């Protein structure tokens, strides 16, 4: 399941990067782990929402967005922690 989650995460991130080619980032490895994906120009607020909902659907993990730390929701490392996604 962990490997599967990692693959799902990679796929969704890469879809996000393809949608926003202007960010200049090409792959998951290119992204700084602790910087907001919105700040990096990888996506905007609606794109981030769609991404989170897709990640929830794909992993079966639901986040409580009232108690979640917003800064965790928008970085690669924060998302790994919230969704228990190991590094590949």
């Amino acid at each position, binding site marked *: 399941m962990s490997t599967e989650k990692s693959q799902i995460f990679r796929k969704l991130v890469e879809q996000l990067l393809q*949608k*926003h*080619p*202007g960010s*200049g980032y090409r792959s998951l490895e290119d992204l700084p782990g602790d910087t*907001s994906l*919105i*700040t990096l*120009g990888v996506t*905007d*607020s*609606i*794109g*981030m*929402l769609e991404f*989170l*909902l897709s990640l929830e659907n794909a992993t079966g993990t*639901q986040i409580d*967005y*009232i*108690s*979640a*730390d*917003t*800064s965790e*929701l*928008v970085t690669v490392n924060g998302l790994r922690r919230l969704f228990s996604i190991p590094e590949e």
Partner: protein
Amino acid sequence: MPIRTVAQGIRCQRITEHLARRKAGSERKRKQTLSQPAPSPTPGPEKPVLLDRFLQTASDAPSAPALHWDGGTATYSQLSCQAFRVANCLKRCGFAGNSTCVLLTGSGPVSYAGLLGILLAGGCYVPTGEHWPPRRNLSVIRQSKARFCILDPALLPVYRDLLPELEDMCIITGAGFSEKEPGDQPLNSSCSWLSCAACPGDRLEFTPSRSGNDYFYLLFTSGSTGTPKGVGITGNAVEAYFSCLAELAPVSQGERFIQLHSLTFDVAEHAMWRSLSSGGCLYLTGEDVRFMPGAFIRRHRITEMMAVPATGSMMLRMRVLRPGAFPDLRRIFFCGEALPAATAAAFCSALPEAMVCNLYGPTEVTIACLFYLVTKEKLAKDAINSYTPIGRPLPSTRIRVADSSLAPVRNGETGELLLAGSQLAPGYWDDPDKTAAAFVTADDGCVWYRTGDLVRSTGCGLCYLGRRDTMLKIRGHRVELAEVESALAKAVPSPFAVAVPRMRAGEVTGIGIFVPADCKVTDEEIIRQMGLTLPPYMLPDTIRRLESFPLNANGKIDRGRLRDMLTS
């Protein structure tokens, strides 16, 4: 971020003296210094109530929190101290009343010290976008004819490409709340740089004088010709809006307001003045909070929120709208685009004691001028096409639902919404042609603003039905597709390069573009070139390449089918 200690800051008696001078002195009539059509006198309060109320709080409750941001807070005393420094510095540099002054301050606390200082100096503030491309900010600065700007030195990296382009400007720093001084100044021989930090922060060195008909702020919206168009709003118009809002939804002293918007968007004026004119605290947010403000609202016990409907819809989809989630939130205003009835109803269910209000208004008529108070029961019968009505006009505003000859349509018929009243802008900035086209005199001799919005009158007021042109709203921002396509044409010079809105559940969520399959320009290069002139919210998030374009019966590109292709 360390806060400069200004406990010694402002001396209350000095502010009180200043207020007394304002009240005693008659307003001096000043010559119009801008090359703009002089605003026609509109009825309004005799003195600038909002600014005076802010100063009154600085006098009466100097240690009350005025601003809160990630890393710091500023009291009313600290904020007014910095505002006085800016005002004094501007005056020492020869800043004339009713002149424009640009804010190169992003969305942080320096913006508020800067704009308050500009207003105290009798000027009009011109926000720029920290995420806008330098060319767009430069266009705004040049159109505004500003000779002064307030700069937050912390944002020097953001404006590094813009600053060398400025000519003959006086760049003022030192309005911030940290000890950080500007780093290396970009080489720019024709601009003068100075810090306002040495100017007095405890008093004004001049007798302030503002007329209600002086410009208060100048904003630039998307323009169909590819250039942003300016809308200057007068003090009277701003005062009229907040006076009406105070009647509709009074505020208690010491409330907490969330700022979800950049100052380049007039919706930001709402939270700012509702807060600073009532002794409240304005909570500034960054992009990461704006995308999901629920946790922030709960943690900081926010009492009033003004948001675009897209934010409300996101909160709904994130499952945060549940009973008891926001026990302190008393009022929720939506403005900027059509409000889905499902979003409004979800807020009513989660916050049964709170006021949920849908506001409507174009930038040209000062933030908002129609309102509809939402209850689930009313909404169930009033909603049309699954959207919340825009309701009835504020007392400052007159409405007419008109046909193409501007004559009123019969009750219940669809027509274009025309607006008049004391919130109306004098016209477009330095653009008599656009002004003449949009600000029209009807058969009743009254000047009406043509909104381009199609509406129908119903028992609950007006309902919004759509646009009569191709203007879109994306998260409240006005977007002219023609401006997007103008930027696209520079990147892809082909008649088959088209921009269309991307829709989701009836809402515009972004822009997609279609280019010919044999287009040699890469996606990255298209985005890069468009990004030279367009702000992020106007950039496409999808690029499709087509071997052949669908055409309609007239042989034109079938944009409806392209839109469907994008959605599917």
